[in-house]
Every structure is written in structure tokens, then in C-alpha cells.
């Protein structure tokens, strides 16, 4: 074997090595500072029919093509819901890379359809970020989605007085991947800076 063919073999070996390390890096699960990313274990969602705050129908396929963050709550919730929506708005604002920001959508899903009309949701979500989307639906239409995501919600002390009842609800932020699959979850409390870093990792490497 002459010198030049040895060089070619060495270069080929080097190329294989690079390819392998690149492949392994790509396959390595995304590690987050907060929350859990399911990676390959992302779970398919059932079909569902919701209504967006602009009155348009919203189905599972509308999650296709971008990363989605979902928070479930209600507008009559004065403490946890504004805290979480503000944390999401701050997190999105702290993401430096415009491509990462553009790949993300944030949805506030009302679990209190009687009091939260699409018009009410439109005003509410826009207050935190004009790009956020409010979603709602009669409870029977909401259940397939919340069940698949493990998001519990229950009415408590419900009476005819619209200001008097509360809705217990999960404080988690749910992540949906661009294939419309349940891809991760962030538990409260939500730190905007940590969320911003984790979301950047997910969009870039997930």
C-alpha cells in the first residue's frame, strides 16, 4: 500500500468518526434545566375540536409545523393564570434567536367555557402577548385533549354566581412537537429565563 492510499484510508476513518460523533450528538436526548422532554417517546394526540379566540375552529392538525406550549386555566383566575402567562410572555421575549421564537406558539386553553367566550379570551391573551392564542370548547370537546395530556381540571363550589366559583387546574405547561404529539411538560413554578433556555434547546435540537 502506498503513502497516498494510506492517507485516503486515514481521511475516510476520520470522516466516519466525525459522522458517528455528529450522529450520536443528534441522538442524545435534549436535557432540560426544568421540565421533561419526551424525545422519541412523544405521544400521539387524539383528534379534538376546539375554537380559537378569533372564532375559527382549531383541531389537532393545527399543531403541525411548529412547537406549541399549552397552559390550561381560566380568565377568572387572578393569581396563578396571570403569573404563568406573564412567565410565558417573558420567556418568549428572552429568547434571543428570532428563528427559535418564530418556531414557537403559545396557547391558553380555557377550562371554563361558560365564562370564557372567545371574545373574552381574545382580550385576555393579547394583554400578555398579541401573538398568544386563546382556545376554548365545551367541556365534552375539551376532555379528549386534557385526558391525553394528563391535565386535570375540576369545578369547585360552582353556583349561578359567575364570580363565586373556582376551577382547580394543573399548573403545568405542556409542550407539543411539530408532529402534533405530546412532547414534554414543565412543572410550576415557571422561571422565564430557564424556560427561554430550555425552549431554545428543544427547538434547536429536539
Amino acid at each position: 500500500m502506498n503513502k497516498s492510499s494510506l492517507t485516503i484510508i486515514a481521511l475516510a476513518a476520520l470522516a466516519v468518526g466525525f459522522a458517528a460523533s455528529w450522529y450520536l450528538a443528534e441522538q442524545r436526548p435534549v436535557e432540560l434545566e426544568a421540565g421533561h422532554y419526551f424525545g422519541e417517546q412523544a405521544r400521539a394526540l387524539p383528534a379534538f375540536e376546539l375554537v380559537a379566540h378569533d372564532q375559527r375552529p382549531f383541531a389537532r392538525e393545527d399543531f403541525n409545523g411548529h412547537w406549541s406550549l399549552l397552559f390550561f386555566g381560566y380568565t377568572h383566575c387572578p393569581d396563578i393564570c396571570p403569573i404563568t402567562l406573564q412567565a410565558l410572555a417573558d420567556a418568549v421575549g428572552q429568547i434571543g434567536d428570532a428563528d427559535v421564537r418564530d418556531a414557537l406558539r403559545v396557547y391558553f386553553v380555557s377550562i371554563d367555557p361558560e365564562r370564557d367566550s372567545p371574545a373574552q379570551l381574545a382580550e385576555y391573551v393579547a394583554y400578555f402577548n398579541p401573538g398568544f392564542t386563546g382556545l376554548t370548547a365545551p367541556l365534552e370537546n375539551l376532555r379528549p385533549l386534557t385526558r391525553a395530556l394528563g391535565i386535570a381540571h375540576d369545578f369547585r363550589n360552582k353556583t349561578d354566581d359567575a364570580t363565586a366559583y373556582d376551577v382547580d387546574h394543573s399548573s403545568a405547561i405542556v409542550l407539543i412537537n411539530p408532529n402534533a404529539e405530546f412532547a414534554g411538560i414543565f412543572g410550576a413554578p415557571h422561571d422565564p429565563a430557564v424556560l427561554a433556555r430550555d425552549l431554545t434547546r428543544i427547538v434547536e435540537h429536539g
Partner: protein
Amino acid sequence: MLRLLLLLAILLPASAGAELDADEAWIRHLPPAVPVRAGYVVITNPSSKPVTIVAAASPAFARVEFHRSVERDGQMQMQRVESVTIEPGARLAFEPGGLHLMLIEPRSKLKPGDLVELELRLDDGQILRLEMAVHK
């Protein structure tokens, strides 16, 4: 910037008696369509005896209640609290994600920068007054 706004108030009793200090009193601004607001304040009791707050009221709201956000098995619940007691020398925080004032049905459109009066009624009948700033 508004978050840094600090309101320092000595709560003035209508008659001589208990005294509390209130700090960082604010109401989270929300869109007008929402008929409830959360209020926050840090109260300290510089006196030598416990002080119990049994009720709150504001001319700017139909009702004021004490609520606590509690996480149980990953679920957030709002629990109503009937009264709060501040021990001598102790500090009690009404703060985001925990104990808070539940301000129900604003009587007018509140906007950032508005000041809202709050009255706290003690178990001995005394009324203490403070001002809360509305901001985001």
C-alpha cells in the same frame, strides 16, 4: 420598572391600638373583561401582641376575600382563608402564587398607576387603611 414601585405605609388605626406596617402593596392589572384581581402586600407586626385580620374591604371593589393558591398533586387550587394572624415581630406576605387578596368586581375600570384604598378589619373591630398601586 413599575414592579420596583414600593409603597411604604404605616397603617393608621381609626383609634389608638394595634399598628401594622404595610409594604409593597399592589394590585395586578388585568384586562377590563376580567372581573377579579389579585392584590399583594407584605405586612409586619412591630407590636408586642398578635394581630388578627378578619376581613378586608375596598371602595373600588364589591368584595374582598383572602385566598391562598395551593398546589396539590400537580393541581392548583384556590382556598379561601377566613382570617390571618400576624405574631409579634412577624411578617406576613400576600404574594404571587401564595396567599393573596381576592378583589372581586371592580366598581370602575382600573388602570396602571391607579391607587386603590384597602381597609383591613381586625378582630377587635379596629379598621386599618392602606393604599395599593395598580400595575402590571
